[in-house]
């Protein structure tokens, strides 16, 4: 079945709501409109307004009500229309949902999925381009997933819905309709916490996730005659698939971490630190990072290109570490 990234998100919600009547969707314009990007198209018609809820513009309520539904046995999917707006629901995520099980000594779990479009590259400007994953990888009790392919978008969303813990699911809006893939017609999941080895190689380990996966794969193909690149798509940022990273870096001795979220305080720093701590002896060069520059997501075209790790910068970063 040939689908786009966003179609696979739509399918995952359809199939999970069909499979389990406790699954529901809450968010702004998710019902009548079918979502600002049409991710939830058809759900209202199929499942009705009790399970597909057009909420007022109230991110705190969306997340908080999601917790209230979860403790009553429901499995709500909570949409942030743009994931930039997740800051408006921040307290309910980090203090209410993430601590729920912990502060109740394991009496309850919190099966909610908070999903929404992240990412730059579409001239979204300051408030429609953000990549907030590092805010949440810092919080115990949450899981964070970022699919890069249509196959993973569907499989990870299904896994997130079936997971008993709160999962932050970040879907990259640049990928929504730009990638199209054959995916199985049958039910499948992509397990949370497992990275994908996208390409084997001997020279450099490029550890990435989300939108830059595609630039890295293109670089790996284009540079195949000079540098044998190993590409790891993390898919889950919390918990990290440390085993896959370790095995790869042991083999290549070189690690480059690439993400579109900005550099300082990003997950790349955490991965770099851990590689330095545990794999110092096998390294043939410094652990390097390529990420968005430490500024806001500027709107004008040249500024946006300047900020994000585009194809050119990816290629350059790989050459730099390979030459070390």
């Amino acid at each position, binding site marked *: 079945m040939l689908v786009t990234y966003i179609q696979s998100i739509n399918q995952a919600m359809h199939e999970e709501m069909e499979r389990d009547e406790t699954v529901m969707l809450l968010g702004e314009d998710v019902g009548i409109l079918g979502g600002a990007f049409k991710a939830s198209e058809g759900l209202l018609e199929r499942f009705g307004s009790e399970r597909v809820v057009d909420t007022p513009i*109230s991110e705190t*309520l969306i997340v908080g*009500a999601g917790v209230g539904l979860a403790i009553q046995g429901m499995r709500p999917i909570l949409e942030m229309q743009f994931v930039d707006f997740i800051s408006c629901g921040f307290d309910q995520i980090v203090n209410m949902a993430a601590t729920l099980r*912990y502060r109740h*000594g394991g009496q309850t779990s919190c099966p909610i999925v908070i999903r929404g479009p992240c990412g730059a590259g579409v001239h979204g400007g300051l408030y429609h381009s953000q990549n907030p994953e590092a805010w949440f990888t810092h919080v115990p009790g949450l899981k964070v997933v970022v699919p890069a392919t249509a196959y993973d978008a569907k499989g990870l969303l299904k896994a997130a819905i079936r997971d*008993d813990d709160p999962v932050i699911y970040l879907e990259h809006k640049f990928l929504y309709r730009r990638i199209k893939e054959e995916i199985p017609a049958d039910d499948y999941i992509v397990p949370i916490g497992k990275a994908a080895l996208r390409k084997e190689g001997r020279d450099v380990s490029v550890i990435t996730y989300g939108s830059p996966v595609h630039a890295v794969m293109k670089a790996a193909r284009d540079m195949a005659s000079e540098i044998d690149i190993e590409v790891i798509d993390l898919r889950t940022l919390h*918990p990290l698939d*440390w085993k*896959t990273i370790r095995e790869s870096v042991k083999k290549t001795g070189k690690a480059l971490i690439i993400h579109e979220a900005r550099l300082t305080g990003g997950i790349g720093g955490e991965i770099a630190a851990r590689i330095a701590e545990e794999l110092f002896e096998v390294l043939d060069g410094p652990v390097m990072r390529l990420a968005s520059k430490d500024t806001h997501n500027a709107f004008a075209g040249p500024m946006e290109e300047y900020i994000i790790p585009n194809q050119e910068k990816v290629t350059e970063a790989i050459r730099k570490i390979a030459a070390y």
Partner: protein
Amino acid sequence: MTEQKERELYFWLRLIREFEDRISTLDKQGKIQGGVYSGKGQEAVVVGVCHELRPDDWIFPLHRDLGAFLVKGADPNRLMAQIFGRRDGFSKGKDSFLHGGDFSNCIFGATSMLGSTLPVAAGTAYKFKIRREDRVAIAFFGEGASSRGDVHEAMNFAGIYKLPVVFLCENNFYAYSTPNELQFAVEDVSDRAVGYGFKGDVCSGNDLHSVMKAARKAIERARAGEGPTFLECKTYRYHGHSEHDRATYRSQEELITWESRDPVERWEVYLQKRKYDIAAIREEVGGKVKKIVDDAVAFAEASPVPEGPEAMEDLYATPITEG
């Protein structure tokens, strides 16, 4: 009301008073750590609201509503262990006071972000509604918390869907030190209900009869599918915000004025007027509640202090294992 019911209500008032007084004493003796938020003076609110709830109705108590835990059915022993931060507490020592709810009695544990439970209560009530369950959710909050956005978002949503929820505001006139005139520009904060499309009501929170009457109306309205109520109970806390707060921001005269409207004593006057032998009742109930609290303290003190590595437990339902 039957005599049995009247005596039962008196028992709850006295048990809460005894429990909280004991915690204050233990705090002064340095026997418990962490924040202690006494609800002394506000007992009639939680008794009046909770005593008639069904076991499967949910309550979302605020940080001062220890009494709501007791009336809703929480085991006093475990509640005391919770306050002591012991393994037998609801949080198993991971937090103290009322941050650990008791799910077996449909009691939710709040966070310290005041009013943050209201959206959760709204979500719970939404589930009751779509599953056609005639259950209600009671969301307690203070007049100070009413300034937070969570409260607005929850009420707005609950109004739209006519949810079976009671927003129960304990207006004790001070949010920590901040008086109401610096918190909002209205006399009755429940006036806001009209802006959400449901009913607002005010009652005397120190008068058990008044609370019971108003709470019953609100609960019946919710259960009948007629939507939420913003019920404001005017009351007063005798102690500071927490035990270390000496509450110098208010006058002694004001405190005494409210102490003269004490909810427990008021109920005693009522029982007396009903021609019951109040001296005998007072003694009998006094002995009973003292025994319960003595036992709870003994249980809590005997409960194990958690080991350090237990801090890593209960983070996830599906434990995280890294390769």
